[in-house]
């Protein structure tokens, strides 16, 4: 409910204009999770689709899928799934280069496995929080609307577990 209200307010605050431009994006990245002085690094893929409702302000949905889990020898921890919506704010294009920030809502699930004398134990839990990303996009000349980008993202849920990641991706913006 909060999410819906948030998005409605964002939409109201940006006064939708005509000429909506849609886009889609695929990313590959490395995620990090940290708690109890332990670090876990895992791989993930991320897909998003959205639309610019005004110039350089877009709303998009995204979904992450795990590619591998982090393993420190005792525990194995990974983000088993993540999805959410976010508002994209990006700078005007300068020589094909654009900077952007992404702020939105994310729901993600962490799973931690442990192998020990008592057999396998695992914990799986879902968190709600904020997604915050910063990144750079470079428009490619090989194909109109094709963009290469690098990004840092952070999923904050006030849980005591830090979750973030870096990724590279390709996006396509419809003319």
């Amino acid at each position, binding site marked *: 409910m*909060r*999410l819906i*209200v*948030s*998005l409605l*307010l*964002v939409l*109201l*605050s*940006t*006064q939708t*204009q005509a000429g909506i431009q849609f886009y889609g994006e695929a990313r590959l990245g490395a995620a990090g999770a940290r*708690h*109890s002085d*332990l670090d876990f690094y895992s791989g993930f893929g991320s897909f998003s689709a959205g639309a610019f409702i*005004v*110039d*350089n*302000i877009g709303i998009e949905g995204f979904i992450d899928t795990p590619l591998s889990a982090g393993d420190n020898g*005792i*525990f194995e*921890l990974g983000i088993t799934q993540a999805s959410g919506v976010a508002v994209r*704010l*990006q*700078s*005007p294009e*300068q020589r094909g280069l654009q*900077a952007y*920030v992404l*702020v*939105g*809502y994310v729901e993600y699930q*962490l799973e*931690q496995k*442990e192998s*020990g*004398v*008592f057999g396998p*134990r*695992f*914990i799986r*839990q*879902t*968190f*709600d*929080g*904020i997604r915050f990303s910063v990144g750079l996009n470079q428009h490619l000349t090989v194909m109109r609307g094709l963009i290469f980008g690098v990004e840092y993202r952070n999923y*904050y*849920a*006030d*849980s*005591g*577990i830090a979750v973030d990641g870096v990724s590279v991706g390709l996006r396509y913006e419809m003319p």
Partner: protein
Amino acid sequence: MNIIKSKFYSVSGFNALSFGIASGLLLSSCSGDGRAFTEAVEANNLQLKTLTVVQPAKLLPDLVVNPGDQFSFTLDATNVSDTKVTLPSGNRRWNVDNSAVASIDDGGNLSALSKGVAYVSVAVGAVGSQRFKVEVREEVLQTIDSIVAKDIEVDGVLERCLPQQYRAIGRFVAVDGSGTSSLRALPAAQWSVGNKEVGSVAKPVDGFASVTGVNVEPLVVIATVDEIAPLSRSIAVSDTLREIEIEPRNAAVTLGNTLPLLALATYEVDGVERNGIDITESVNWFAEEENSLLTVGNTVFNKGIVTPIATGNESVTASCGNLASQKTVIVGASDTTSESSISIRSVILSLTINRLGVQLQLSSGTSFDEDNEIESDTTWSFIGDTNNVATITTSGFITPLAPGTVTVQAVNDGRATDIDILVTQ
């Protein structure tokens, strides 16, 4: 960044207030308790195997409470070796399965809310406890049903000067008298004895009253709760106490110091003797002439502590009913005796050391070499029975093991000197 900012604010009709509210809602949508993940690491470090929910000691395991009652649960844990491990009960993921009946916070503090049954559990990482049943009923105390011992094996029998824990149990019924009744502990009961010459009862701790018999007669203990009819119970005091011995054997203290005396008892049951039972806290201590040369403590926490006033000899008595023991305490002038190094002189010394983590080296007064070894050829040993109170090496290192008294003898060139060592808890 400025580019982003200028474009951002240039959006026609942008409503900063709406955006602010949206951001606030996003922030408030953060939820997630990551403790399970950190606890898993803690559980792994401790090799945690089992968790058990423990009800307050003052209440019965078949827990029946009224709406509005509040109390705290704790947890017990064992590791892979089935050894008990210490695990704080606070900041844990406590849970009740029926939030309409009861609520519980992270500290294990439960509040009974309404009639019904709820089950309490707790988890640390992926290790969960068994469920603990709590029944909430709207009932009032009808009668004091019984007075029972904490240790059911000794229920109804006391040994002189060996306290036992007792508690009162009440029968509760519904206000309108309908339905079945329940039995509950009565931690707020008031306690007294009917015959003070036979024994005493102390104020309850955690719902248990400490009952002590001193003479061989039935001791009448009485439990009272508000306007409810009191309940009395007769507890036999058995004639098993054979002897009281005051330690240390040679009791000496100098002005400015204190001397803790111990009352050690010998009991005999069916021909089997138990020695060295510490009854210091149960006996009655008094000096032959109080406040003359010394005072001796006779209240909780200072039982048997001798405080000298003037030099001389004074008798101190420890009694359990009509059985007593006396000890002459020598009060000397102040000296410089220290606990870490003692010179053997021609007088008998008494030394008190704490059992915990202390190692003491006795010196004959000769010097130590570079390796901290005594250069003299004095040899040290215990004389008499040590009762595993302490160990000693021939070079004089003493390691205390348990409360009690041992006598150390130092021999040098055929000359021997004794020292009494009192080890306290």
